[in-house]
């Protein structure tokens, strides 16, 4: 069961990177049978600080039986901090903007933007959290970028056929 969720997570990661066909070939049919999705919880955006990318820290009731409030808040807070870092208006972003303008934005052909660097960090963090916290609890965190930075989607799977490790 855990293995199946892990495969789904890996499959989604690979699909995001465009490696779908190879993933499909290497896994057997049984592993690809999706575990049953009980429900999906959507953490909405928190617009109290304006249009910055920030998610609400309110603990959803559907997860009460599965997840500690502390883990959830830590995940959301870290994500919020990462996105705040990406959108920070400071010397670095101004320098990047001015330099890019002077080169008619051709510099982005060879350089990665600040935001893109942070998005990679976010992807890594989510993968990490899934492995350590969410998959062991039959949950799956979806990277908000796959939902247009609108929601953090947490998929709740049925069948808790394992002993919690933590």
């Amino acid at each position, binding site marked *: 069961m855990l293995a199946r969720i892990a495969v789904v997570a890996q499959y989604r990661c690979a699909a995001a990177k465009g490696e779908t066909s190879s993933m499909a070939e290497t896994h057997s049919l049984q592993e690809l049978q999706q575990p049953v999705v009980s429900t999906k919880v959507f953490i909405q955006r928190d617009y109290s600080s304006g249009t910055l990318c920030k998610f609400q820290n309110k603990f959803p009731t559907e997860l009460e039986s599965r997840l500690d409030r502390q883990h959830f808040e830590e995940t959301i807070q870290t994500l919020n901090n990462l996105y705040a870092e990406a959108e920070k208006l400071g010397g670095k972003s101004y320098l990047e903007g001015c330099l890019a303008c002077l080169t008619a934005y051709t510099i982005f052909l060879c350089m990665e933007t600040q935001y893109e660097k942070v*998005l990679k960090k976010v992807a890594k963090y989510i993968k990490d959290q899934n492995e350590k916290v969410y998959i062991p609890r039959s949950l799956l965190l979806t990277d908000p970028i796959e939902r247009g930075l*609108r929601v953090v989607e947490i998929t709740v799977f049925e069948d808790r056929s394992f002993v919690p490790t933590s």
Partner: protein
Amino acid sequence: MSAVMISRKVRKWEKLPGKNTFCCDGRVMMARQKGVFYLTLFLIIGTCALFFGFECPYLAVHLSAAIPVFAAVLFLFVMAMLLRTSFSDPGVLPRALPEEATFIEMEIEAANGNVPSGQRPPPRIRNVEINNQIVKLKYCYTCKIFRPPRASHCSICDNCVDRFDHHCPWVGNCVGKRNYRYFYLFTLSLSLLTIYIFTFDIVHVVMRSVDDGFLSALKETPGTVLEVLVCFFTLWSVVGLTGFHTYLISLNQTTNEDIKGSWSGKNRVQNPYSHKNIFKNCCEVLCGPTYPSVLDRRGLMRDDSPVSASSAAPSSSSSSSLSFSNSSKPAPATVTTRTTAPLIPNEHTPDDAKPSIDAPAAPGRSPEDHLPAPSFIPPLASPETDAEASVAKDKNH
């Protein structure tokens, strides 16, 4: 005929809803009507070609060789900004997937409580407090999401766009969060280029007239007459537009908000996004972080849809060439109408949910707010409430 099932790589842009055209296998994203964009290209390239052909040889010899060099640099910058504005994703918000849409519907129904049958449910609005001001988030019936603050639905492209400014037919795309600075730099550099060409046209004619007389000077350089004509009309519109956007940037407002009068008036909410400092506002809009596209156009679709061999070819081959589905006549208006042309408001009401707008975005078209009664009713919504809410809001202006 036996169908051979092969799985072909389908990129996500092929399945994106909305009325955009994609080129170069998803790398380029534009609106469907591109006629006016081609006109813009023609005017800029044509006028500059005439300048390089008629003015530059004379001025490089008689005045300075730096003149054509600077003109070339400015021209390249203008083209780079124009193409960047036209080809990039303006900040389109992807539509809600079915589970998310259902989740939001359930939240709305829970919030509304029990509505007696026969009565209309209340309008779908969420109130958010931003910087001590109450901002209303409207629900988009097409995209099935509550639009983030400053986002708006463009009925021409049929997408919700973040920090929506306006849909500009001259660049053939929406102007939104991701491409607003390129649009501004395009208008600014185009103003400079127009002034530059106009000035040196005059200098050229004056210098020739001193030698040969005015009429014979004009006969020697017929291209100059054409250039002066184009530049004269372009100047008023483009310089005016640049000035207008400079004003908007200094206040951190969008064209959409300015037209709707969202932040003007004593009894209305003050702009919660402004830093109250012109320099900070300019820095944020022009030098702020470059937002990535959340559309993932070139990603591969997760479920490879099996397609029969006979039909697999056409759809993929048409995508790679520069093609567009809806060819339209370019707007008949001259460049003089540019000041009124780009300001196409986008108020999304369910009237626009299935827009029947096939005509090109002609300059000076009246806003979509005043479309006739809806012919399409979204399944889970009551369209009248949103229309009423927006009509009521308009009455309060």
